[in-house]
């Protein structure tokens, strides 16, 4: 029996060897999860954040750049300080905060660096850098924050901040990581893909304690970051700054467009804020303050606020009437104030006179003709059909729908149709007398200031527009801008109908906005006063100039400023002067506008 035992033992040895080899095969060859765990253990990916693209204005003035800031980092293991009070004074930090930050760093890691003081300014850095050598375990890490040399155009430019949860979820390409910065509004958000560049990565090896052990595979896998693309905005920074100055202390919007291209020359939302507030270490604090501000400085009025357009809408009504053959230049109505209120002017008036004098009863009567075309004997039905036809024509003017500006959050406004009134009053229970306030741009009609400026551009162009936009060039190339901004949109009204309308707008200033008149440049404009049930009426003015060769089309909307001829027309006129001449000579008018305060 004993003779077989040596063979049993040899078999036993072989079986043990095989068992080990099988298990080794399972974990080494068949299962690659250990390889991934090993990489997670020892290889650290360090992201190389790219330099974000700069933003220039239309004249190549810098609007946004990257300002280097310095984070003071600490390695708790190496750090020691003898005189805490002296340290605090030197580095400009309160003792409690220092202790709190140091403890947090210690808790995070004893040997890995973490930030002790965040975002030290350039000046502070210059002051402390010589002392750094006295404190072991401290070093400085450079980052950059956005900076705005003119503190201007905050709402148009937007801001960047840490990516939020829903943005992370939408990022299907998995480019972003928690804690990355991303454009949150304005151009920063819309042109994020161009501005951000491409992150690079360095692969470093670390040991079990997280201590750097050099680059992985001699850096063969490392990728350099690619700086973001610079973009040029259509904004004229001088004009923008000037407009913001004029709008100081007021609530409202100014949008100026170059009619021939749809380029937005200025985009003012008042009250605004200094964009530098939302860059850097105080972001959270300042955002909170701005967000709670009753004047809503973060609210982008030119594209988010919707108002009844008031009298400026009469021009749209005139053009639709002309195009559809319901009105001719000679169509005359009596200024019948029993229909709707008006102001003193000669009566009756033809179309030219109606525009020039902004005659309400004229449009009340003309609109009835446009709506009730007697397609049906049922007056309710007739109104419904007429209204929807009219609505379609109005929407061609870029109303009731988003114009597609290169910003997020744009509102489309509202051009009411039968659907809306059916919902409010019930089908067959409303007729012209229910909706007549639409005739003079009141009622359910809602328009954004951007759309008003676009209307002005349409009038200047005699019937077409380019969707208004803020981008002029990407990476110095104007052809790289989105295709839709190079595509002309026709409003469906023949150009010759605009001649008389332009003439009437040129005259209109003499009737309703004499202050806005310039001696050497003919401004074609139209005032409006939108009724406001909550307080003073809103003051509206649209204009373009020079009338014969329009270079600028503008809409000014000042809330609670009363009659449109006063604040809005004067502001628009000054903006036109500034843009066309470069300087403003009418200092009296300027002072008049600056003196106007229409906020509570």
């Amino acid at each position, binding site marked *: 029996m*004993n003779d077989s*035992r*040596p063979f*049993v*033992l*040899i078999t036993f*040895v*072989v079986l*043990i*060897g095989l*068992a*080990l*080899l099988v*298990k*080794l*095969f399972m*974990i*080494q*060859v068949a*299962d*690659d*999860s*250990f*390889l991934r*765990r*090993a*990489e997670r*253990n*020892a*290889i650290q990916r360090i992201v190389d954040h790219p330099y974000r693209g700069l933003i220039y204005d239309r004249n190549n003035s810098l609007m946004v750049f990257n300002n280097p800031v310095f984070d003071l980092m600490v390695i708790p293991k190496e750090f020691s300080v003898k005189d805490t009070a002296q340290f605090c004074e030197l580095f400009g930090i309160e003792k409690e905060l220092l202790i709190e930050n140091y403890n947090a760093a210690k808790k995070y890691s004893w040997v890995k660096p973490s930030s002790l003081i965040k975002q030290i300014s350039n000046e502070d850095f210059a002051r402390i850098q010589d002392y750094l050598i006295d404190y072991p375990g401290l070093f400085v890490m450079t980052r950059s924050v956005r900076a705005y040399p003119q503190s201007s155009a905050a709402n148009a430019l937007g801001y960047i901040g840490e990516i939020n949860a829903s943005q992370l979820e939408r990022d299907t390409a998995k480019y972003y990581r928690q804690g990355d910065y991303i454009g949150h509004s304005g151009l920063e958000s819309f042109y994020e893909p161009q501005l951000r560049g491409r992150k690079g990565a360095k692969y470093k*090896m*670390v*040991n*079990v*304690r997280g201590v750097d*052990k*050099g680059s992985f595979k001699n850096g063969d896998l490392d990728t350099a970051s690619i700086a973001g693309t610079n973009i040029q905005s259509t904004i004229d920074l001088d004009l923008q700054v000037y407009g913001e100055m004029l709008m100081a202390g007021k609530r409202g919007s100014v949008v100026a467009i170059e009619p021939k291209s749809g380029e937005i020359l200025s985009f003012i939302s008042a009250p605004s804020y200094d964009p530098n507030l939302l860059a850097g270490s105080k972001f959270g604090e300042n955002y909170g303050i701005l967000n709670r501000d009753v004047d809503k400085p973060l609210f982008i009025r030119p594209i988010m606020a919707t108002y009844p357009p008031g009298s400026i809408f009469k021009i749209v009504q005139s053009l639709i009437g002309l195009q559809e053959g319901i009105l001719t230049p000679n169509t005359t109505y009596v200024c019948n104030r029993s229909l709707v209120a008006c102001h003193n002017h000669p009566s009756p008036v033809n179309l030219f006179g109606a525009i020039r004098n902004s005659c309400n009863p004229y449009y009340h009567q003309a609109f009835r003709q446009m709506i009730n075309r007697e397609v049906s004997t049922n007056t309710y039905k007739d109104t419904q059909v007429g209204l929807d036809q009219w609505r379609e024509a109005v929407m061609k003017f870029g109303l009731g729908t988003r114009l597609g500006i290169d910003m997020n959050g744009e509102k489309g406004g509202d051009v009411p149709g039968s659907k809306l009134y059916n919902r409010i009053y019930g089908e067959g229970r409303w007729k012209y007398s229910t909706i007549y306030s639409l005739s003079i741009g009141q009622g359910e009609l809602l328009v954004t200031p951007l759309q008003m400026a676009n209307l002005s551009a349409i009038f200047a162009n005699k019937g077409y527009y380019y969707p208004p936009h803020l981008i002029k060039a990407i990476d110095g190339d104007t052809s790289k801008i989105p295709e839709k901004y190079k595509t002309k949109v026709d409003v469906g009204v023949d150009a010759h109908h605009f001649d008389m309308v332009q003439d009437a707008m040129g005259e209109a200033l003499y009737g309703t906005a004499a202050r806005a008149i310039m001696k050497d440049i003919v401004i074609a404009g139209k005032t409006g006063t939108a009724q406001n049930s909550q307080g003073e009426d809103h003051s509206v003015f649209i204009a373009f100039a020079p009338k014969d060769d329009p270079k600028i089309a503008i809409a000014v909307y000042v809330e609670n400023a009363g009659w449109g001829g006063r604040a809005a027309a004067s502001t628009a006129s000054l903006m036109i002067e500034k843009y066309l001449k470069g300087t403003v000579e009418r200092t009296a008018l300027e002072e008049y506008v600056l003196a106007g305060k229409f906020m509570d």
Partner: protein
Amino acid sequence: MRQDDLYINKIDWITILIYSLLVIIGWFNIYAAVYDGQETKSIFDFSINSGKQLVWIGTAVLLITVIMVADYRLFENLSIILYGIFVLILLLTPFIGKEINGQRAWFEIGAFRLQPAEFAKFATALTLAKYLERPSVDLSQFRYQWRAIGIIALPVALIMLQPDTGTAMVYSAFFVMLYREGLPQRYFIFALSFVTVSLLALGIENNLYLVGGVIAFMVILILLGKKNWQRISFFALMGAIIIAYSYSLDFVVSKLPTHQQNRIMVLFNPDLDPLGVGWNVTQSKIAIGSGGFLGKGYLEGTQTKFDFVPEQHTDFIFCTLGEEFGWVGSLIIIILFMSLLIRLIILSERQKTRFARVYGYCVVSLLLFHFSINIAMTIGLFPVVGIPLPFFSYGGSSLWSFTILLFIFIKLDSHRIQMLDRMN
């Protein structure tokens, strides 16, 4: 003089070749374990472990020379005396040993540290061989069985006092030799069932499954054979004992020291506490597992280089090999060990004296135990036991004791003809 008569031709060079390969590969792996890619020191640098290991290797060569030139009769004659000396030393170790990690297992002599328990192994092996050589000894009889086991149990008991469970466990390897020398098979069947049941009882969460399994197994055994009352009651009793044992095991385990309990728990649930108790095994498996088929290349292993595996130059030296040379490297080392073991079995079988054969099998037993348990623990097949991989692991005590153990046998083997003459 015929060529056969040259002493040098009587030495088994195959064993020595395998030994040398293992020692040299081990030495390179020790360098890989201390290498961190930044502070590059030479493999010969005496301030690091690979340099020190070179000293151990050099002195091991001296030891080999001494053993090979000594009189072969010396080992047999000194066996009992050596055993006595080591028993005495082990008796003293718990009192005068240096305390490391809660154990008093080491002697410190100047700059050197020696672990008496390591050296006691070969003395025990020699004494076992000496005892079993007596013509009257028959391991099928109980009185010889308990004496042989007593020779093993004495140092084990003393080592447990240090306490060094891992090294004490190594002594159980002598049962492999006892098996060859005729210890009845039923002991091993019993031990095997005992281990199997223990593993199942610990591994299976719900003991009811085990109970069901045992009952089913016993019913099958009863149905297979004759159905007389004797057999039925025997298997029923066996089943009851196994079930009672499996239930008592949880209690027994709960009485073990916490670190041993944890090592057992981690075996069955490696993800139990990967940053705490499971750290060693988890990191060891990651290091070996990330090696893939061909490994990451010499000195390219990130896990071992950057200290993710604790004790990687001693008990966990296999990680370095597994990571840097992959499955193929592991295969080569396992084949080397298996070849060595099989070669030693063959050599033992060709011995003319029972003394040399028993001693040979003692060497096989100890090497097999160390080799299989050490590798099994690095890949999570066995609880973590602090025992080195023979010839591979860093350390003088380990290298010296295995060298002495192996070369005494090579010496005895080279004199096998003379030994027979002496007997006659």
